[in-house]
C-alpha cells in the first residue's frame, strides 16, 4: 500500500514538475523594410523615359522640357512605401571626333561657361513647369535635394532646364547622363 502511495505521490510531483518546467508565450514582430522603387516614364506614363533629344542649340542657349501629356518632360512613377529625398547628379564624357572642332568633355556648373553646362531640375505639374528649379552641379552621389516627397509613393512630374556651354570648343553631339537618386532620409 505504501508503495502505491509513494508511486502516486511521485506521479503527482512529477506531473507538477512537468507542468511548471515548460511554459511558453509569444509576441509578434511586425517589420516592413523600406521599399524604394521608382521609374522614369514619359510624360503620359506610357513608356520608359530614356533620353531627352535636345538637338542643336546655340552657345549659352537655355532649353526646358515641355508640358502636357505629349510633352517631353518626365513622369516619376514612385511605388515606394516611404517618404523619399530625390537628389540628382550628372556627368558627361567627351564624344568621339565629329569634324566640328576638337571634342572636349563637358562638366556641370552653377552657370554656363567654357565647356560647362548649367543643369537644373524641378518638380512641376503635367501642365506647368516648376516655379523654382534646383541647381544640379554635382558629378556624383550627393548634392542638393531636388524634391522631398512627404507622401509615400507620391508620383510627380519632373522637368529639366539646360543651358548649353558658352563657349563650347566643339560642335559634336554630347551626351549628358542625369542620375535621379531616391533616398530614404
Amino acid at each position: 500500500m505504501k508503495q502505491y502511495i509513494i508511486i502516486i505521490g511521485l506521479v503527482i510531483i512529477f506531473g507538477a514538475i512537468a507542468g511548471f518546467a515548460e511554459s511558453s508565450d509569444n509576441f509578434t514582430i511586425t517589420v516592413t523594410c523600406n521599399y524604394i522603387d521608382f521609374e522614369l516614364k514619359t510624360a503620359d506614363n506610357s513608356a520608359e523615359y530614356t533620353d531627352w533629344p535636345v538637338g542643336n542649340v546655340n552657345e549659352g542657349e537655355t532649353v526646358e522640357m515641355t508640358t502636357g501629356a505629349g510633352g517631353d518632360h518626365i513622369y516619376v512613377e514612385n511605388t515606394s512605401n516611404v517618404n523619399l529625398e530625390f537628389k540628382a547628379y550628372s556627368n558627361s564624357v567627351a564624344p568621339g571626333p565629329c569634324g566640328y572642332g576638337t571634342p572636349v568633355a563637358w562638366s556641370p556648373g552653377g552657370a554656363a561657361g567654357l565647356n560647362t553646362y548649367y543643369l537644373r531640375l524641378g518638380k512641376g505639374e503635367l501642365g506647368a513647369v516648376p516655379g523654382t528649379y534646383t541647381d544640379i552641379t554635382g558629378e556624383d552621389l550627393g548634392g542638393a535635394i531636388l524634391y522631398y516627397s512627404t507622401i509615400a509613393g507620391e508620383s510627380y512630374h519632373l522637368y529639366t532646364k539646360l543651358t548649353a556651354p558658352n563657349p563650347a570648343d566643339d560642335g559634336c553631339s554630347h551626351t549628358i547622363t542625369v542620375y535621379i537618386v531616391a533616398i530614404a532620409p
Partner: protein
Amino acid sequence: MQLKSLYFRLASKDPVGISGARTALISASVLLVLLSVAFGQDAIEPFAIQVTVNYLDMELQEIGGSTYLAWHIYGVNPGDTAAMELGEAVHLVNNCNVLVDLFSTVRDFPDSGTADTLWMPWEVWTIGGVDTCGFRWASEAIHAVPPFSNGVPIYTASTPVEADIPAGEDRYLFAWLLLPTDGEYGEQHRLISEILITPAIAH
C-alpha cells in the same frame, strides 16, 4: 531536483540542434538586414540628354585654296558695274554643323590709301548715285558665274544673301559693285564686306 537536472542534461545533450538553429536564426537575421540595406536605402534611375552646340565655322578662300584677301578693281568709270569673274569668286568653305543663314554688310573704309581732304566716303545703297555705290552678293552652290539678277543688294544686314544653307555645304560668292554716278574722281576707295553666318533656326 534529480529529475529537473536530468531534463536539462537531456536538453544539453543536443548541442548540435540548438546551436544549429541559433546559427540559422542569426544568419537569417543578418541576411534580412543585408537585403534591407541592399534594396531599401536608395534607388537610382538615369536618363540621357543629347545636345549639340551649334558650331559655326567658315573660311573664305580663293578658288586656288588660299585665304581670300581682296577683290581688286582697277580704273573704272562712274556708273560702271564691276562684276567678279569666275576666278575671282569667293569660295566659302562651310564647316558649320547646322543649317545657316548667310548675311553680309559692306561699308566704305575711311583710311583709303589716297584719302585726302577731298575724299568722301561712299554711301551704300541698292544702286549707284552721287558718292553712293551699290553692292550685291550672289551665293551659288556651284562654281559658275551667276546672272546679275541673282545678286542680293547689300544695304541692310537684315536680308540674308541666302537662307537655310545646309550644314557643311560650301558656297561660291560672286559680287557686283555698282559705282557712283558722280563724286570726287581719282580717290581710292576700299570697301569692306563682312560675311556673317547665323543658325537658321534662330530666325
